[in-house]
C-alpha cells in the first residue's frame, strides 16, 4: 500500500479538480450541462435518489413536485464539475435530453387530466330510481350502494351493492373503491348526510357519483416512497391495516433495562401500542430463548398465528442475541417464501448498514428505515398487478433470461468498458489523475430480468435484494424511466467478513458505494470501491457526476445499439427455448391435433444447432485460427481429444494474458501499479472469472468460453446484425419428441442465486385458459418440490450428522408429479371429446455437480423426458 503511494505522483482532489475545471471550460460550451439535474437532491449524508419518469406515464407529475419540495440547501462540491470532461458526444446527448424535456412539459397539463380519469370512475344515477333497502338507509335507497367508513374515519368506502343496483355499477366500480364526490362535491363521513339532503331537494334528476379506484393508487406509491425518506401516514395506515409489521428487539440485559421500550429498538408501523408484534413481543422472545435452551431444538424460523381472523406468518432472525421480526399475512407470502425473504432483508440491511445492530441502534436511521420497510412491504404486498401470492420463483433468485450469444457479447462488452474505465479517451494527463473509484463490478437488468452480472455472486445477491426489496426493479418494469440515479454507501460481504474468511488477496481499508442508474426499462447497478489504488473517500461522499455519466453512457450505448427495441421484442418472442403456449393442440400422443403445418419445418430437429449468424459472429471474434478449427470440431463432436487440447491452450493463453487484457486500465491510469494492488484486483476478479470458467467447462464446448471476451467488436457491425436478427430468430427446443411439449421451466443455481426461466409475464402471452392453469399449478408445485429437495442440498453442503435431519429425504434427487387439467376447464376450451384427459408433469431435479443446481420442468405427459438431458440443453442456451 505504502510503496505504491510513493511511486505515484499524488494529487490532492482539489488540485486535480482545478485541472478538470479548466479543461472543461475549454471543451464544453454548454454551461448548464455541467451541473447535473440531480445535484440538488443529494441528501446531507451524500445519498441520492433521483427519479424522472417519461411523461406518458401516470404520476410523473407527482414525482416532479415531490422533488422540488424535497430540495435541500445546495452545496457546491469540489468534484461536481468533472462532469463536463466527457467525450464530445455527451453534449449532444444532453441537448437531446433537454429538448425532450421541453416537449414533455407541454404535455403535462393534458396528462394530468387523463391521469385523473384513469383513476376515478364516474357513474350517473337517476334519482327516479328508488332501491329497496332493508336498513332504511338513505344512501342505499338513493344509489343502491352501502358504504363503510375507512379506518381514517373520514373516507367512505363502497361496502356492497344492492342486487338491483349491481348492473349499474359493476364492473366499473368495485367493492373497496372510495366514494369521492357527489355532483362534484367532495364527500366524507361527516358531510354525507347534508349532501344527501341537498341532493334529494335538488331539481336535477341525474346524480353524478365519482369513485376512486384505490388499487391503482397503490402503484403510484412506489415511486413516491423511493423519493421520500419517510412514508406518509396513508401508507403507514395501509400497512397497518394489512397486518404487516416489523420489530427489532435487543435482548441484551443491559440495554433491556436502560431502554424505555424494554429493549425495542425499532418498530414499524408505529405507534407502538397499535403494532401487534410489539404487543406480543414477549411470546417471540420467549420462544426464541426456549427452543435452543430448554427444548434443545434449533432456533425458531417462522411462527404462524391468527390475528383478526387473518393468518399471519412471523419470521425470526437472530444476531448477537438480538431478535429481528418480520410479519406479513399468509395470503401474500407463504411460510417458505417468508423464510427466504427475511434472509434477503437481513442481507440487505447488512449490505446497507454493516450489521443489524449498527442499523437499528442509530436513532438517526429511523426515518430512513421507515422508508425502507414501507417500500419492502409495499413491494411484497402490492408488487404484482394480480392479487397473487409472492411466487417462489420471485424470491429464490435473480431472474435471468436466455439471450442469444451476440446480445450477450454486446451487453458484456458495454459493462466491461464501464468497468475498465479507461480514461485516456477523455484526458491527456493520465499521469496526473488518480481515479476516485475502482469499479468492482456491475449488473444490468432489463424490465426486472438480469441480462448480465459482473459482480461476485455474494455481491449480486445483496445488490439484487436491495433493488428488489426497494421496489426499484418492479418500478423499472412498470414505468418507462427517463432518468434514475441512486447512490449510497454500502458494506460489501467481503468487507464484513474480512476477518473470517481467507482470501488470496487483501481487501483494502476502503469504502464501497453503489450507483444505480436507470433509463427506459434498463437498470444498471454498479459497485464501486474507494480506497486501495484510488483516492480515499473521506467524510460525506456524494455521487460523482463523472461516474454517474459514465454509467449513463454505458446504458446509452445499449440504446445506441438498439438493444431496447430488440429486448422488448425478444422478451415477447418466446424462442430460447420455445415454450408450448397453446396446450390445446397437443394430443395424447404428443402430436398436433390437425394440420401438421408450417412451424414444424423450422423446428424439426430436437437437438440444438447454432444459427448461421451466430457462427459468423464467432468466426469474427476469434482471431486465432486454431480456435476456429476447434469450433468446427465441437460441431462434429468427434475429435474430442484434440479439442480438449485446444481448449487448454486457449485457457492457458488467457490466464497469462489476463493482466493485460482485463486490466489494461490499471496500466493506463496508474502507470506503475504496485504489486499489492494489482494482486488484489486480479485476485477478486480472477476469482469470479475462474469460477465462471470452471462452471462452463462442464459443457465441453469452445464457444461457451468466448462470451464477453471480445473487446474489439465493431459496434456498428453488430447493430446491423442485431436488428436484422429478430426476424429469423432460431427457435430452440429442449424437450424430446416431435412436437414441443415444454410448458415452462426454471433452472435455479442456488449457490449463485441466479434463476434462469422464461420471462415473468409469459402467461400473459398465451390466451389459453388451460395454459394459465398449468402455469399456476407449476408455480405452486415447484415450491413443494423445492422444499423437499432442500433436505439433500443442505446435507451435501455441511455433511453434519449432528443436525438430525430426516435421513430418508436426504437422498431424493428427483421429484415428479402428474396433474390432470380439470374436466370443466377442458370443456370450456372445447376439448371435451371422448372424455380424454389432459395430463402434464411437473418435475424437479437436483444436479449437485459442480455446484448445486435445481431444475424444474413442466411438460405434457405424452413424451417421456430426461431431465439430465434438458439440463444439458439448457446449459448451452444460458
Amino acid at each position, binding site marked *: 500500500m505504502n510503496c505504491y503511494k510513493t511511486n505515484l505522483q499524488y494529487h490532492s482532489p482539489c488540485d486535480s479538480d482545478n485541472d478538470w475545471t479548466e479543461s472543461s471550460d475549454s471543451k464544453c460550451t454548454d454551461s448548464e450541462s455541467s451541473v447535473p439535474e440531480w445535484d440538488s437532491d443529494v441528501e446531507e449524508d451524500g445519498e441520492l435518489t433521483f427519479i424522472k419518469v417519461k411523461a406518458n406515464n401516470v404520476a410523473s407529475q407527482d414525482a416532479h413536485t415531490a422533488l422540488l419540495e424535497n430540495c435541500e440547501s445546495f452545496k457546491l462540491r469540489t468534484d461536481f464539475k468533472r462532469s463536463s470532461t466527457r467525450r464530445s458526444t455527451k453534449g449532444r446527448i444532453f441537448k437531446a435530453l433537454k429538448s425532450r424535456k421541453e416537449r414533455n412539459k407541454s404535455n403535462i397539463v393534458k396528462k394530468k387530466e387523463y391521469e385523473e380519469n384513469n383513476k376515478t370512475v364516474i357513474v350517473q344515477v337517476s334519482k327516479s330510481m328508488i332501491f329497496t333497502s332493508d336498513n332504511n338507509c338513505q344512501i342505499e335507497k338513493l344509489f343502491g350502494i352501502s358504504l363503510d367508513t375507512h379506518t381514517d374515519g373520514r373516507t367512505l368506502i363502497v361496502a356492497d351493492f344492492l342486487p338491483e343496483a349491481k348492473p349499474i355499477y359493476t364492473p366499473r366500480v368495485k367493492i373497496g373503491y372510495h366514494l369521492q364526490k357527489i355532483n362534484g362535491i367532495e364527500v366524507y363521513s361527516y358531510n354525507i348526510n347534508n349532501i344527501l339532503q341537498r341532493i334529494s331537494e335538488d331539481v336535477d334528476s341525474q346524480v353524478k357519483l365519482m369513485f376512486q379506484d384505490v388499487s391503482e393508487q397503490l402503484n403510484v406509491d412506489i415511486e413516491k416512497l423511493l423519493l421520500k425518506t419517510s412514508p406518509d401516514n396513508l401508507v403507514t395506515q395501509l400497512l397497518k391495516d394489512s397486518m404487516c409489521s416489523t420489530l427489532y428487539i435487543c435482548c441484551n440485559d443491559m440495554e433491556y433495562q436502560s431502554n424505555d421500550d424494554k429493549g425495542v429498538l425499532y418498530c414499524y408501523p408505529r405507534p407502538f401500542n397499535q403494532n*401487534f408484534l410489539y*404487543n*406480543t413481543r*414477549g*411470546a417471540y422472545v*420467549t*420462544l426464541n430463548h*426456549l*427452543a435452543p435452551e*430448554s*427444548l*434443545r*431444538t*434449533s*432456533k*425458531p*424460523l*417462522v*411462527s*404462524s*398465528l*391468527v*390475528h*383478526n381472523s387473518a*393468518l399471519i406468518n412471523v419470521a425470526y432472525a437472530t444476531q448477537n442475541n438480538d431478535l429481528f421480526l418480520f410479519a406479513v399475512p399468509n395470503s401474500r407470502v407463504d*411460510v417458505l417464501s417468508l*423464510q427466504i425473504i427475511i434472509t434477503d432483508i437481513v442481507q440487505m440491511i447488512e449490505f446497507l448498514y454493516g450489521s443489524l445492530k449498527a442499523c437499528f441502534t442509530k436513532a438517526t436511521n429511523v426515518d430512513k428505515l421507515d422508508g425502507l420497510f414501507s417500500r419492502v412491504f409495499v413491494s411484497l404486498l402490492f408488487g404484482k398487478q394480480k392479487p397473487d401470492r409472492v411466487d417462489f420463483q420471485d424470491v429464490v433468485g435473480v431472474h435471468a433470461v436466455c439471450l442469444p450469444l451476440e446480445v450477450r457479447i454486446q451487453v458484456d462488452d458495454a459493462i466491461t468498458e464501464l468497468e475498465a474505465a479507461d480514461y485516456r479517451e477523455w484526458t491527456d494527463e493520465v499521469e496526473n489523475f488518480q481515479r476516485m473509484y475502482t469499479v468492482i463490478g456491475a449488473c444490468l437488468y432489463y424490465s426486472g430480468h438480469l441480462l448480465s452480472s459482473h459482480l461476485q455472486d455474494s455481491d449480486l445477491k445483496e445488490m439484487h435484494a436491495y433493488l428488489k426489496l426497494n421496489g426499484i426493479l418492479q418500478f423499472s418494469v412498470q414505468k418507462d424511466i427517463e432518468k434514475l440515479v441512486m447512490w449510497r454507501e454500502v458494506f460489501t460481504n467481503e468487507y464484513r467478513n474480512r476477518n473470517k474468511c481467507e482470501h488470496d488477496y487483501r481487501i483494502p481499508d476502503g469504502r464501497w458505494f453503489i450507483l444505480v442508474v436507470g433509463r427506459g426499462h434498463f437498470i444498471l447497478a454498479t459497485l464501486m470501491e474507494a480506497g486501495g489504488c484510488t483516492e480515499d473517500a473521506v467524510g460525506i461522499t456524494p455521487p460523482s457526476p463523472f461516474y454517474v455519466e459514465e454509467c449513463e453512457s454505458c446504458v446509452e450505448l445499449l440504446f445506441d445499439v438498439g438493444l431496447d427495441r430488440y429486448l422488448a421484442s425478444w422478451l415477447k418472442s418466446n424462442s430460447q427455448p420455445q415454450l408450448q403456449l397453446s396446450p390445446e393442440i397437443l394430443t395424447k400422443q404428443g402430436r398436433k391435433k390437425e394440420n401438421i403445418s408450417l412451424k414444424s419445418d423450422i423446428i424439426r430437429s430436437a437437438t440444438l444447432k447454432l444459427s448461421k449468424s451466430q457462427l459468423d459472429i464467432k468466426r469474427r471474434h476469434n482471431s486465432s485460427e486454431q480456435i476456429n478449427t476447434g469450433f468446427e470440431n465441437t460441431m462434429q463432436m468427434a475429435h474430442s481429444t484434440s479439442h480438449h487440447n485446444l481448449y487448454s491452450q486457449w485457457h492457458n493463453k488467457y490466464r497469462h494474458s489476463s493482466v493485460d487484457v482485463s486490466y489494461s486500465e490499471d496500466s493506463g491510469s496508474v502507470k506503475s501499479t504496485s504489486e499489492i494492488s494489482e494482486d488484489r484486483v486480479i485476485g477478486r476478479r480472477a476469482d469470479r472469472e475462474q469460477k465462471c470458467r470452471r462452471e462452463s467447462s462442464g459443457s465441453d464446448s469452445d464457444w461457451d468460453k468466448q462470451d464477453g471476451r471480445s473487446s474489439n467488436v465493431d459496434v456498428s457491425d453488430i447493430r446491423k446484425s442485431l436488428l436484422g436478427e429478430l426476424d429469423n430468430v432460431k427457435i430452440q427446443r429442449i424437450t424430446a419428441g416431435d412436437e414441443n411439449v415444454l410448458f415452462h421451466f426454471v433452472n435455479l443455481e442456488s449457490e449463485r442465486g441466479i434463476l434462469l426461466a422464461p420471462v415473468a409475464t409469459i402467461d400473459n402471452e398465451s390466451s389459453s385458459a388451460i395454459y394459465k392453469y398449468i402455469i*399456476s*399449478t407449476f408455480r*405452486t*408445485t415447484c415450491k413443494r418440490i423445492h422444499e*423437499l429437495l432442500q433436505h439433500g442440498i443442505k446435507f451435501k453442503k455441511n455433511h453434519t450428522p449432528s*443436525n*438430525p*435431519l*430426516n*435421513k*430418508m*429425504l436426504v*437422498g*431424493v*434427487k*428427483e*421429484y*415428479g*408429479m*402428474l*396433474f*390432470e387439467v*380439470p374436466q370443466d376447464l377442458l370443456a370450456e376450451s372445447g376439448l371435451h371429446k371422448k372424455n380424454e384427459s389432459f*395430463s402434464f408433469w*411437473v418435475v424437479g*431435479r437436483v444436479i449437485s455437480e459442480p455446484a448445486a443446481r435445481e431444475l424444474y420442468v413442466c411438460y405434457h405427459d405424452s413424451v*417421456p423426458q430426461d431431465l439430465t438431458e434438458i439440463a444439458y440443453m439448457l446449459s448451452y442456451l444460458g
Partner: protein
Amino acid sequence: MSVMVIAVATESGVPIFSRKRGNMDNIQFSTIASLHGINMFSKCHNLSMLNTKLENGSILWKEYNKSITLIGIATGGLECDLELLLLYVHNLMIFCIGKKEIENLKNLEQVKRELRQCYPILDHLLEALDPNSVSQTSMFLDLIQSILCPQAQQLQQVLDNYAERVTGRWACLFISGYLVATSSDFYELDSIEAKLLMLLAASQDGAPLRETPVYLPQMSPNVAFRAVTCKLLADVYVLVICGATPALSEIDEIVLHCWENSAQLIKEAKLMYPRNFPISITFEPCILGFLIVNINRRRCVFSRHLHSNQKSKSMSGLHRIDILRTFFVTTAKELAPELKIADDGKECGSHSGPSETYWCSEYHKWHARRVGDLLACALYAPTVPTHTMRLLTNQLLQEISSSKDVYW
C-alpha cells in the same frame, strides 16, 4: 429425531402428562409453563399462536374443548404429521376417560391417574412419527395395517355371528397386529375409533381374554362401551365391542362355540403373513416393496416380502418399510386429499391434487398412483426407467382391484 406431546389444562395451566420418543431430554415444568404461557399470553392480545417452524422441526399448539391444550414438538421426524398426532392424542384421551371428564376436569389428579392407562397406546401413536424405527402396529397414524386374504369373506360371516351372539355390534379379527377381517358393519365406526381399537388390541398383547371400558369419540363420547379382546390362536385375536352384558365368563364360552370350526380358516389366513397379499397376486422382481391404501376404508397393506424365493436381508428389508412410509407420508398423501384434516380444506379446492407422483434417489425409486379409492406406492430398484415404473404400478393396481381374492 424426537417427538413430544404435552397436555396442559388450559385454564389452570396444570400439566396433565407429557410423553416423548427419541433423544430429547425430559422436559422441565418451567419449560411446559413457558410454552403454555406463550399461547395464553398471545391470546390475551387477541392473537392465537398456531405453530412455529424450526430449522428441522416444528412446535404446534392446539386447544380442544376449551379445556385442554396439547403442545406437540417434533424434530427431524415426520413433523408434517404433527397436527394429525395431536388430533389422535385428543381422541385417545376421550377414548379412555370420556368427553365429559375432559371438558370438566373437575378432579385433575384423578384424570391424570386415569389417563396413565392410555400411555401404551400413546407411545404407539408417537412411533408413527419416527422415521427410523419400524413399528409393527402403527406405521401410519391414520391408516389401519391389514392383511389381504381370500378367507376374509368367510371370516366376516363368523365375525357377524360372533358379534350377534355377544349382543355386540362391531367385531374384527387381528393376526400379528394386522387387521384381517371385520364384521359387516365395522365401517360404521369412525376411522379414528377403529384405529384406536386396533391399538388397544395391540397394547393388550398376551392376555387370553380381557375387557376394557372405552368411549367411542364420535359414536358415544359420554357412554362407555366394553371392548373385549380374546386370543384365539397364537398371534390371533378377536375384538368385539359390546354392552355391559354378557359377563366375561359367558363370552369365553361363546367364543369357543363360534370359532372352533374356523380354526382351519384362520390358519390359512395366517399363512399370508408376512407377505400380506394373496398368493395369486404376483410382483415383478424389480419391485422391492409395495404399499396399497384403500382410502375410503382407511386401510393399508404393506409388504416387503414380495418374492417367495428371495431371502430378504433383514436390515435392508426394514429400511424399505421406512423409506416407503416416508414417501407416503410426505408426498403420496397428496394424491388423497381426503386424508387431510378437515378444518382447513380451503386450499385443496383451488388445485386438485396430482394423480401420480414419484421420487428418484441413487439407491431407489418410488412411484405412487391413485385410481378411484385405491392408492398404490411402490418401491423400485434405481435402474427401472420412470415410464416402466408407471406401467408396472398401473398393472398392479389393475390386478389388485380386479382380483377375486382381495376382500377389503
